[in-house]
């Protein structure tokens, strides 16, 4: 307990060293630098043995090949541009999307323990993926349904949206959505989706089961450049649009009645949060499978550094989320090279102890 208090005090103290009113901007700057550094460092990580110092040569060679297409590309070039670079871009997009979605959810539910999964996006996407993998062979027998294939991605994306819409509708009451009901509906629907996935797992053949299993553990390795760019655009748009919700979310933190009295259009705000979260998390989950804990952890750390003002927490969570996913993925693809560890396992292994720490500190506060 004492170490925890000291750690929190230490972090807060560290942040307190920064000039007061502009603390948020300093934190964002620091996170931006961290992202750049992580990106550069991760570019040199990988099983292929293409370290950072060889990259400039590879880039130069690629430049040459671009202008004189007759030349043949070296293996290093192919590895970097076809395999590593799309993964890096996807890592940044996924991390940013999950991070900002987590911050939006925590602002919406007014609870630092909230997570995008509460509105059912992840479980909806997983259920749709299970559906596609197990029963999809009936409709698309020629198409292999594993991570990264278009039918699977589209089904997962829309599955996430449909379940979110269901939970949102369930929570509608007279006078708007009731956040408490949304939470409970989310828990119930998540459980239902879990049961559905269990049933589909039972019906699955060995091959389908393995495909589903690996999809649910999450990986950045299965995405085409087209998909990566789509997810990147969605993530960018979400972060930009979310920024406009920052001040209203601050007001919402005082309480719903208070926010209404301050002139905040609370129902529109809730819908916007949910819609943005569903879109970005749906897109990310469709291409990478389920990656957990980023949406929980990133906003919390940013809040510890920069304070609870959403004007800093929203973009900060996006930056920090990107950093976390980049680092976790670098680890995932080098730890047991030449094999690869699913990303979801690493985020869970690091995320669960952190979450428990969070619970303890949240509990400690209320004492």
């Amino acid at each position, binding site marked *: 307990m004492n170490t925890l208090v000291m750690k929190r005090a230490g972090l807060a103290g560290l942040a307190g060293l920064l000039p007061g009113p502009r603390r948020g901007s300093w934190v964002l700057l620091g996170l931006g630098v961290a992202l750049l550094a992580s990106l550069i460092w991760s570019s040199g990580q*990988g*099983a*292929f*043995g293409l370290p950072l110092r060889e990259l400039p040569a590879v880039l130069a060679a690629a430049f040459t090949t671009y202008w004189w297409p007759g030349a043949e590309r070296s*293996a290093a070039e*192919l*590895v970097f541009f*076809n*395999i*590593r670079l799309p993964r890096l871009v996807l890592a940044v997009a996924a991390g940013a999307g999950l991070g900002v979605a987590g911050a939006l959810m925590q602002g919406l539910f007014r609870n630092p323990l909230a997570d995008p999964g509460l509105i059912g996006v992840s479980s909806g996407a997983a259920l749709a993926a299970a559906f596609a993998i197990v029963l999809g062979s009936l409709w698309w027998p020629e198409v*292999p349904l*594993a*991570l*990264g*294939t278009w039918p699977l991605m589209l089904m997962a994306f829309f599955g996430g949206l449909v379940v979110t819409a269901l939970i949102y509708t369930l929570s509608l009451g007279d006078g708007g959505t009731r956040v408490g009901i949304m939470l409970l509906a989310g828990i119930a629907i998540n459980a239902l989706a879990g049961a559905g996935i269990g049933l589909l797992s039972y019906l*699955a*053949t*060995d*091959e389908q089961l*393995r*495909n589903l299993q*690996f999809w649910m553990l999450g*990986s950045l*390795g*299965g*995405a*085409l450049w087209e998909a990566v760019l789509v997810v990147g655009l969605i993530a960018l748009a979400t972060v930009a649009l979310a920024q406009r919700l920052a001040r209203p979310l601050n007001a919402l933190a005082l309480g719903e009645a208070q926010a209404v009295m301050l002139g905040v259009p609370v129902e529109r705000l809730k819908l916007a949060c949910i819609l943005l979260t569903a879109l970005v998390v749906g897109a990310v989950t469709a291409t990478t499978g389920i990656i957990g804990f980023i949406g929980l952890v990133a906003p919390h750390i940013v809040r510890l550094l920069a304070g609870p003002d959403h004007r800093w927490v929203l973009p900060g969570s996006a930056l920090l989320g990107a950093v976390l996913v980049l680092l976790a993925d670098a680890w995932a*693809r080098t730890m*047991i*090279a*030449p*094999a*690869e560890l*699913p990303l979801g396992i690493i985020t869970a292994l690091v995320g669960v102890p952190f979450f428990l720490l969070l619970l303890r500190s949240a509990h400690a506060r209320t004492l």
Partner: protein
Amino acid sequence: MSQTVHLRATAAAVDAAAAPALTRRACTLALVALATGAAAASARSPRLITVGGSLTEAVFALGAEAQLVGTDTTSLYPVAAQATPKVGYMRQLSAEGLLALRPDVVLALAGSGPPLVLQQLRSARVQVELVERRHEWDDVRRTVQAAGRATGRSAAAQDLLRRLEQEWTRVRAQVQAYRGPTPRALFIMAHGGSPLVAGGQTAAHAMLTLAGARNVVAGFNGFRPLTAESMAAAAPDVIVTTTQSLQAVGGAEGFWRRPELALTPAWQRRHSGAALWHQDALALLGFGPRLAQVLEALHRGLVAA
């Protein structure tokens, strides 16, 4: 090894060309020899990754294990295969991981993936060959021929295949000549500790059928958990399983202690030792080069019950 020979030849050539008049020409010749030698060396023994235990077995059977730079997690036979770098599970390969081993050819069972990774390998100029598996003798033919093509030893592959086909014909004749009652058998898999029975469209079902037995639980496809009632209704005389499953449930004693089996005829004959037959998973279900000899052993085990 051929490269060292070439190096020595080059060194000799350079030495021999100490005479000034011939130096330049000799050097050029030596360099050309070295380059073509290296290319030829790689063409003659391409670096190979196999994904699938039966494919790895075939490569070893052809004596080409020196070319093997990586195998998947199911490649456990022969024992030397376990020492090669492991590229992970066949359905969750890593493109960069595979490319890090600098392969020329990747030989994989159909169903390996994810599909994007295979695509990325091809775009990196790695030859990717997928081998179909339909749980029949032709699997072995496809496996051995593919291994022959990938290792550049097609002639040796043909020889091996001819020998295996002779063995296969003999064993099949033996099975078909058997005039006794058709053994009633089923296959149990318990790698995770909880037992599943094999229905239709599984490798186990194919093996039982080829061995002249009747799979008494062929009413469904794939693997299903045991229930006592279904076991009693199925009433198998012999139970076939993998050695790994047996170990997972705690040996034959642990196996027979399972309540679902208590109502089967096999259980009543458990002390005879012939009611339970087991074999290594890869050998039994891999449909690799050992198919014929494993089938013979299976048939003998089934009819002994």
